[in-house]
């Protein structure tokens, strides 16, 4: 059984936010008007966080692309009263939009703040509306949504592999953010499969995981910038 995960090399990340845009487009993420975004209601499954490091004038920007950590021990799952958020056999943490009652307990339980709530019904500009991704369901008002590691791509890749009567290969499945990253900072694959790049990258001495001390066992690894 695969255990899907991600390794993000912070040395390679330029903060271009292509991953953020690709994710929004791939996953039919609704556009939130500016004044709503100002209130903290924008939705961004993948988000490039920026931190200013050092003291003036010796400063540097450090960028952290932040998808859902797809924890092996996810704090969001236990607290859901209706089992609307779950972890599947391959370690992907998902949300059942049709069941979610919108209590936002999971959003409060997640230390990485990756669960987003639909305060209003979804809206898109006319141009976006014309190219919504048919593989991804749109979310109604009042439910939580989150990064799925582009789970629909896995389903499609698996069907294609089955049709060709072959095993699923590493290059068959990767989320939109990993696919578009121009510097190849985001690497995706099966953490338990030694032939996948992520399996060896996660053994790199530069590896850190966010808030590992909380025991969440995130499956997104970061490679610390070299000095």
């Amino acid at each position, binding site marked *: 059984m695969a255990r899907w995960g991600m390794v993000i090399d912070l040395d390679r990340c330029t903060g271009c936010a292509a991953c953020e845009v690709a994710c929004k487009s791939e996953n039919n993420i609704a556009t939130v008007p500016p004044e709503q975004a100002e209130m*903290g*209601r924008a939705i961004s499954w993948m988000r490039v966080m920026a931190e200013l490091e050092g003291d003036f004038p010796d400063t540097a920007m450090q960028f952290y692309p932040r998808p859902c950590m797809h924890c092996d021990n996810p704090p969001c799952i236990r607290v859901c009263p209706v089992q609307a958020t779950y972890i599947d056999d391959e370690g992907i943490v998902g949300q059942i939009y049709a069941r979610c*009652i919108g*209590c936002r307990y999971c959003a409060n*339980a997640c230390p990485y703040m990756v669960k987003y709530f639909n305060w209003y019904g979804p809206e898109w500009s006319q141009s976006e509306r014309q190219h919504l991704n048919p593989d991804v369901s749109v979310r109604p008002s009042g439910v939580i949504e989150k990064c799925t590691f582009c789970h629909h791509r896995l389903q499609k890749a698996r069907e294609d592999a089955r049709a060709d009567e072959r095993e699923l290969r590493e290059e068959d499945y990767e989320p939109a953010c990993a696919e578009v990253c121009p510097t190849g900072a985001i690497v995706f694959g099966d953490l338990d499969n030694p032939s996948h790049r992520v399996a060896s990258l996660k053994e790199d001495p530069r590896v850190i995981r966010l808030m590992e001390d*909380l025991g969440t066992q995130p499956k997104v690894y970061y490679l610390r910038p070299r000095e």
Partner: protein
Amino acid sequence: MRQGVREKLARMSTDEQVLLRPLVETSRSFYIVATLLAATTLWGVFAYYSQVRYGLGLTGLNRPEYWGIYIICFVFFIGISHAGTLISAILRVSKAEWRRSITRSAELITVLVIYWGAVQPIIDMGRPDRLLNVFLHAQLSSPLMWDIISIGLYFASCTIYLYVPMLPDLAIIRDSGIKAPRLYRFLAAGYRDTPGQRAKLERVIGVLSIIVIPIAVSVHTVIGWIFAMTLRPMWHSTIFGPYFVMGAIYSGIAAILVAMVVLRRAFGLQQYFKLIHFDYLGRLLLLFSLLWFYFTFAEYLTAFYGGEPGEMRAFWAKLTGPFAVPFWTMVLGCFVIPLALMSRRSTRTPRGTFIAGIAVMIGMWLERFNIVVPTSVNPRWEIESIGRYVPSWVELSIMAATFSGFILLYMIATKFIPIVSIWEMKEGREQSVREVADRVAEYLPESALAAAAEDR
């Protein structure tokens, strides 16, 4: 009041005359206040309608401030509901004779406020249309499910605990025929106050008053656990279960005192809510203000001493940061004012307890605010600490409607239920005076017991 009713009332005992009068006589100010409260409640219903129609976007909530006024009110109102049942049950079990005139009004607060508390998480839901999912897809590892079970059980047991001790009074009203004969024939459920029925009744009350205590304790413990089970700074704390129970009882006593002062004045119950009751309940309030300080101090000192960065952000946000005003107002309302007023006999009067009670209720509402909001806007991940929260008109309207709806329901209930238990007053006069004398004699050495028996 009609002539016939007046004659019927005149034939009854003094207790009955005083305590049944509000059922058949309604003043003009009652109608004025009730109309204002009903209008506020309806306005809240309209606000909720807008929220359902347009979405939770109409609130001031956002990311990371996922929970706001509704959850604060949920904790606050369920807290108030600990007034009645728990206190009346504890007083009954401990055979505190001074309870007789106050249990009914306290139990009534419990039952009527619990709806208004329990409805808050439903108002807070993004998809209230999917409410039944909590039964269809129940996940028992969620503290919210523990809450549903616990509050459901509490509601059921409190309603029974209010109703059963009310039976003899309902029978009195039925037999007097002063009001709605059919309704009271139904409500009194064939109770005739025969010695056999009375013995059974007392046994049931005895069992119920023991059962409701652990249920009441579980309710607010579980509400505290909703917060404590997350890994968030200043929520993830083992003290939260007991802290919430203590706070709930504290705000409950305050609510009883305020209700008693109002009822005493409105219905002329000076002979039933006597100065001694305010004195005793005032002492209880004093005890809880000290307990409140102890718990709060323990909680904040532990967070401060550990000095964990995530905790410290929420900590300083409360003590000196943007939440300093609600924090120090809370300390004033929950500790300074009640301590100052309740530690002196001269201010443990109806007026003094009324002021202290209001202060404690405001303080306890703010305590819940200070638990929910500062932690929400200061998540563990510092990079995301950008939260702000300004409640919208929808949230404030629904909160106003909740307060007015509760008071309105309570007012209406006083028109159907004697607010002081008639039969328990009678029982107090006829039996307890002697029983208490015997009991006190029993505490003393045998020789004194014999002497006391000789005296009688």
